[in-house]
């Protein structure tokens, strides 16, 4: 939307080259069709093919902002708690924060999630490949969907693999006697990984929904929205995991 709304009178620009020269040009930002081609100043629903996409992207962005704060709040514990401790009877300061060496499988999980981000991005981009989209829009077939589907399926499979890997990691820790209630670092580890796991499960459901949407939805825009928003959500969860994992590996004290 333009910062200020001014009605343009048709201005013509003529380079006075003396002879011939360019034809009169419409200075408005869009084509010279003579109509008001500024999509932003049209009524809702007629602001071009990206109107709905922008609306849903904004929503995804605000949801992810809330999620960001949520994870930030959980992570404060990781920074606040190690500084605490207690003074023993012999007046020694006892720190009871035990570093936790993460189960090695988390490295594998991280790689899997990274890979899934790549596949999700490829799937997302297929839905915006202009020639394919145009073909879909004209109803000549669904080349974009056909190309995106395998990549999306791969993302879902990799996402499932990641969750299974996390499940294994929790079991491995539990079999070592490190449960959620064992020590402060465990509280944090389980809380943050389970919260992230739940978010990822929701993302997985969103991807499955997007898969269904690609084949079920009649409107091209809706198919794009479903894949685009779930892919961005997936990317954000990947990013959050990257940060959490780095924290768990590097910042252990």
């Amino acid at each position, binding site marked *: 939307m333009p910062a*200020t709304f001014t009605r343009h009178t048709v201005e013509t620009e003529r380079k006075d080259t003396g002879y011939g020269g360019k034809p009169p040009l419409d200075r408005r930002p869009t084509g010279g069709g003579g109509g008001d081609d500024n999509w932003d100043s*049209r*009524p809702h629903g007629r602001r071009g093919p990206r109107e709905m996409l922008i609306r849903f992207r904004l*929503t995804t962005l605000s949801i992810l902002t809330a999620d960001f*704060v949520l*994870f930030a709040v*959980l992570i404060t514990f990781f920074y606040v708690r190690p500084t605490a401790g207690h003074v023993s009877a012999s007046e020694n300061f006892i720190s009871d924060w035990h570093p936790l060496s993460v189960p090695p499988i988390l490295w594998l999980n991280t790689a899997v999630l990274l890979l899934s981000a790549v596949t999700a991005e490829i799937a997302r981009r297929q839905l915006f490949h202009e020639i394919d989209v145009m073909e879909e829009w004209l109803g000549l077939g669904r080349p974009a969907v056909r190309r995106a589907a395998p990549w999306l399926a791969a993302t879902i499979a990799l996402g499932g693999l990641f969750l299974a890997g996390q499940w294994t990691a929790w079991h491995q820790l539990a079999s070592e006697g490190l*449960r959620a*209630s064992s020590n402060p670092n465990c509280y944090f580890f389980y*809380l943050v990984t389970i919260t992230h796991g739940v978010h990822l499960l929701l993302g997985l459901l969103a991807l499955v929904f997007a898969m269904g949407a690609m084949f079920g939805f009649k409107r091209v825009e809706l198919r794009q929205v479903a894949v685009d928003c779930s892919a961005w959500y997936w990317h954000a969860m990947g990013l959050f995991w990257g940060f959490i994992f780095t924290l768990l590996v590097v910042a252990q004290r």
Partner: protein
Amino acid sequence: MSAVIPVRVRRPLLSRVFTSSHRDLAILWLLLALAAVILGTLLSLAMRIHRVWPMLPFPFYGVPTPEQYLAGVTMHGTLMIFFVLTVVPQAAFPNLVLPAQIGASRMAFPRLNAAAFWIGFASFLALIAAFFVPQGAPIGGWTAYPPFSEIAAAGPGQGAGMDLWLVSILLFCAASLAAAFNFLVTILARRAQGMTLGRMPLTVWSWLVSSALTVIAFSALLAAAFMLLADRHFGTGFFLPAGEVVNGIRQRDPAAPGSPMLWLHLFWFFGHPEVYISILPGMGLASSLIANFTRRPVPGYRFMVTATTLIGFLGLGVWGHHIFVSGMNPYAGTAFGLTTIAIAVPSSAEVLTWLAMLFRGRIRLTTPMLFTLGFISFFIAGGLTGPVLAQPALDAYLHNTFFVVAHFHLVMAMAGVFSVFAGIYYWYPLLTGRRMNEVLGNLHFWISLIAAYGTFFPMHFAGLAGEPRHYAQLSGPVESFASLIPVEKGITFSALLLAAAQLIFLFNVFRSARHGIAAGENPWRATTLEWSPNAHPIIESGPYVYGPGVASQDDFRPQWAFAENRNGSPGECSPPLKQE
């Protein structure tokens, strides 16, 4: 949809309740807030009466125990802050006028919006249910500080009651977040043609900022409340310190102690922005109403927008002033004291702008304007003690005294409620096509104003004299506070008068719906789009074009004026307003 709803369209009740229409949802939110405010007020009256006549039995109940008094404190605070002061300005009012004010026919996500209401309703039910479980409602206050909130044995109500309270808060967070997502996207993506950010009414700016604050603050509370729930049920110990002993019994020792201070920080990281979530819409409304009822533009519109945004931004960095005496690092206290005083700057800027608009203005003292003036009065009276309490040294004395109670009841509760009243009196014609009775409105305002000052102003003196909060009674074997009993009695009588005055308001609301004078299309001759008769306005001017000579035939130019000129006759496509 027209801005002025035809009055007598009968729709089946069910379709009005299970709806995704924002106007209907506004009414549902208002009814929810009404239920909450009635309950919250009754609780506060019961507490006031118990404080001054501790032996007086309540009918059908008996004499409340000190724990039941504390349960009253907790539930009063929770109901009022979440279900009244958040719900009305940040859920009911935006549903009522936000889409109309930006020229949108509907919200960006109507079903998400409806879901927000039903989650909020479930949250209300969960909170009320806490009264009816064994041992009753929680007694830890609306801030639920650990370890009190961690241990079921800590007192009656800290078991099932506390769990229900936490569930209620988690649901309320979800509802607020859902509503805020919808408002944010609606404001950013569904504005009408020509409604640039610089032409949005200040109410819409306030909702933009408060929705952004909601996204940040409520997700922090969501996480913190979930951690507390995990402590209570999943064996973790985020906030639970070691060595808790209740009645000689050592409580569950976590494997390692957690940090109660962390809860304090996380809670108030939510709690302080929450104050601005509930007061910013009122500030935006005050600007709009003063412009309207003095027929003057808002001077420095951009300046006001900047101040609003700055208040929201700074509001995220001041939470520490709630916990100066909790054992926080004193240096942190100094820092939080400074940021708190900094926030007084944009707040004062807004107040001074309002005063400048009022200065030598020809003020039309309609009921909404009276309540706006009341809002400003309380905002100043309560706000002035803000920088006082922001001094860590002074707060060490004043903390947990009635001085604090006076401060936040004036600046948040009374200012908030008066702006809610201003909004209801102002927007009432949108819902019913009628105006509320002015005589009753005046009566309601003056009694409320005097009684509210009578209730909360003397609390400053009681607080300075050292009267503590949260005490069920002041008399007893120790006579320390006996000299304060007369003041306390005065406060109680004043509170009863304040509550009684609200009966006038309720009577006015229900009577005017049938018998009020017909409002016409634009009863306040306002410029903002909720009064537009056009369904698809095209906006060519700012929100506050008032004053002589701004339009050819009148002293104001509505934002939809351009569309009228283009269509020929004004209000061409508006459906006729049905009147009796």
